[in-house]
């Protein structure tokens, strides 16, 4: 028999019944969008179009339209790529790792986090694609048999490992997300009255009927996928970090990179989930399900991963001195005090210092502060990648090569544009998909619902 201690906080607030949960979650899908949604959507579409325009301009003219130069030959492109991939880590972490840890609070947030993961990974994949210049040859990243003699991909390159890691991660995340959606699509199908939505959702629901046997399969598959996805969460960002760490560039080649990138990815991913869910819970009135307790739990993950990232920053800094290698020492001195000191300061403040206020319980539970800090972390984690990439490149071993990087309007346009595309996808998702795992949520109503908890004690 399952027991729950009286000191645990309820995870579903208010006097909810099973039916009420269905009503609340289906309302945004079945009802009409409000004005706010249309305003947001229009802005997102405009920004996305601007981004698409810049992308087409890049493809047409070549990547010479970016601010890259011979010294800084990697800058915003890879920064944005790593930033988006990092954000794409939270969804699968929430769905897989928190499932393995039996964290009930994940049920209110996993759906949106997974959706965010899918969209973020799509945005990430865009960057290596357009960076190739000749995007129509993008399939060359795959080891395909060909007629050009022995023309193969470079298996020694971590960039190729990235291709494998990210495509695997994307596929598993997509399957995981979709499997979870099936019972909820079925619920929407059963409630739909108009013929077109009903037929669409019935295709999407794969003939789910809610039999006990189906639920058994459902849970088994979820567990197997969770077991597969957990090492993937580690592998993806470890391999992204190896893009840098396998080199011998000072500031890039350091052994802590794989776990430190993973921690940073979870950190930034949770910050993005926080940003999105604080908005979503308000806009579609799901405050009873995404409670302060949920926000607090995410904040705790943010402060833990933020501290790990902080340890890694300080470790790098200290070991650079300790190593006695002058190039290593200069790379870090230049990061902190060179012409890009402001980017380093930004990274340190946003990622290490500000999340520390989450050690105070009141702050962790404040929705306004959580929102602000989550934006800080999003910014800080972008700067982290910028600092790693650009400051290590712009002053290399030959001082006559030293230069700065200046983004062009195309660099900026593409980056802002991906944020626009991301929001277009997310806003469409929020109107057509059940944003909470409503059927799974019902399974905890009687143990973690406010009303049932009150009855018990």
């Amino acid at each position, binding site marked *: 028999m*399952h027991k729950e201690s009286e000191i645990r906080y309820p995870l579903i607030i208010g006097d909810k019944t099973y039916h009420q949960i269905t009503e609340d979650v289906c309302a945004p899908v079945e009802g009409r969008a409000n004005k706010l949604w249309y305003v947001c959507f229009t802005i997102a579409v405009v920004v996305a179009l601007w981004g698409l325009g810049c992308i087409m301009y890049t493809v047409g003219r070549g990547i010479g339209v970016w601010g890259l130069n011979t010294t800084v030959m990697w800058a915003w492109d890879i920064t944005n790529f790593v930033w988006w991939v990092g954000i794409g880590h939270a969804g699968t972490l929430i769905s897989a790792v928190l499932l393995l840890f039996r964290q009930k609070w994940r049920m209110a947030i996993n759906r949106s986090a997974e959706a965010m993961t899918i969209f973020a990974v799509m945005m990430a994949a865009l960057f290596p694609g357009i960076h190739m210049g000749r995007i129509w040859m993008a399939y060359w990243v795959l080891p395909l048999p060909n007629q050009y003699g022995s023309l193969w991909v470079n298996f020694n390159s971590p960039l190729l490992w990235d291709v494998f890691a990210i495509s695997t991660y994307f596929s598993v995340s997509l399957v995981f997300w979709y499997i979870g959606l099936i019972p909820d699509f079925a619920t929407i199908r059963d409630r739909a009255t108009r013929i077109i939505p009903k037929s669409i959702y019935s295709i999407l629901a794969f003939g789910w009927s809610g039999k006990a046997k189906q639920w058994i399969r459902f849970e088994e598959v979820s567990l197997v996928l969770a077991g597969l996805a957990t090492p993937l969460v580690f592998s993806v960002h*470890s391999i992204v970090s190896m893009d840098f*760490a*396998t080199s011998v560039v000072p500031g890039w*080649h350091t*052994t802590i990179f*794989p776990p430190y990138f993973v921690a940073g990815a979870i950190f930034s991913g949770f910050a993005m989930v926080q940003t999105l869910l604080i908005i979503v819970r308000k806009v579609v009135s799901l405050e009873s399900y995404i409670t302060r307790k949920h926000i607090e739990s995410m904040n705790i993950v943010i402060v833990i991963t933020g501290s790990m990232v902080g340890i890694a920053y300080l*470790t790098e800094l200290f*070991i650079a001195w300790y190593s006695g290698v002058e190039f290593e020492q200069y790379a870090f001195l230049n990061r902190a005090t060179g012409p890009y000191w402001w980017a380093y300061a930004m990274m340190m403040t946003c990622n290490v210092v500000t999340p520390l206020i989450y*050690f105070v319980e009141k702050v962790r539970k404040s929705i306004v502060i959580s929102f602000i800090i989550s934006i800080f972390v999003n910014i800080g984690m972008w700067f982290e990648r910028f600092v790693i990439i650009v400051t290590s490149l712009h002053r290399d071993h030959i001082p006559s090569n030293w230069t700065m990087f200046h983004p062009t309007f195309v660099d900026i346009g593409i980056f802002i544009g991906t944020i626009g595309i991301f929001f277009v996808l997310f806003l469409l998702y929020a109107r057509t998909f059940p944003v909470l795992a409503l059927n799974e949520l019902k399974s905890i109503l009687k143990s973690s619902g406010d009303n049932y908890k009150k009855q018990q004690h």
Partner: protein
Amino acid sequence: MEQFTIPNKVKRWSMIFMAIGGLALIMGIASLFMAGDEHAHHHAVARFWSNLLINGFFFFGIAACATFFMAVNYAAESGWWVVIKRILEAIGSFMPYGAVALFIVLIAGAFHMHHLYHWMDASVYSDFMVKTAEGITYYSEPVEGAIVNPDFDEIIAGKIAYLNVPFMIIRQLLIMGGWIYMWKRFRTRSLEEDLGFERGRHFKNVRDSAIFLVAFGYPISTFVPWDWIMSIDTHWFSTLFGWYVFSGLWLSAMIVAILMVVWLKSIGELKEVNDSHIHDLGKWMFAISFLWSYLFFSQFMLIWYANIPEEVTYFQARINAYPLLYWGMFFVNFIFPMIALMDRDKKRNRMMLTIMGIILFCGHWVDVYMLVTPGTMKQHGYIGLLEVGMAIGFVGLFAFVITRTLAKAPLVPKNHPFFDESVHHEIH
């Protein structure tokens, strides 16, 4: 409430183990005086003190990581673990003993009784020296009659601001003292809770565990592994080193907890622990084995791939001189748990957990052995009677201390707010 009494058999065996350890200790000390020539003497000194360092560090680390795991569970508000809480507390009680062993090594090094830590030698970091009939004195300034020190090591000299005996004593006293003090606070409140549940007291433990996670997390990632282990290979550096060492110790702590639980169940104690708890412990062992393997691979692969002399010599020293021990250690610690514990039923099988636990425990002892020995004894180390004897001695002392702590309180904390959840814990 029912108190646990240590079975005589365990008392007897821990005594026998300690006696074996005592013999090994005497043998080690005797070897210091019986060495034939200077070379043999150096060998005996390095071997003896390396052994004390390896075991002191390993068992201290296990005790500290058990306390860490307790704090994690408090902070994460997990419920299932309550029935094994007293075991984690008991393992944590070994911390002072391990710390004493480590400090003996440190103080002995400071008095030049051994040369495990190269950076303690004035002959490597001083720029100048004066040779007289009585011997050599080293100076950092060019004093009257001084000549340039031919053994001067620029890299080590650059690290002396951090690597010096007073600073190391201060920081390690603060860190280890802090951990032991925090353990005491947890323990005192935990015992008070046996008298009656009080919300405030529980939440104080939750708050303390958050503080402990910070006070533990930072040093275990940095100063503790760097000072005791990484500084042996004074030139070498690796930013991942701290987390790597920590993951191995954490796994060893989980193994000790599992072995204790299985043993206590086998003598009819811990009735509240059911197969689900064992399953969860098995999952932890499985998962942290992967974490350790992942960190090993990350550190090794990046250094192997970049292949720069500052770093790669570290692995060359290990792989060239100890190929079997080093790769054997890695493959056992990585492959065995992967194959043996992947299956759900195996994680509930006490026999399997015991066998794997013992193998991995030895495997991770060898890991620590491999962290230390190639640095202190170059290619001349081997696992002989002294190594085995001292390890057995430490196991005996460890068992003695933790069973004694176990016997001081009831085996399950009945007033813990999650006690009911833990007793009714059921997973599939």
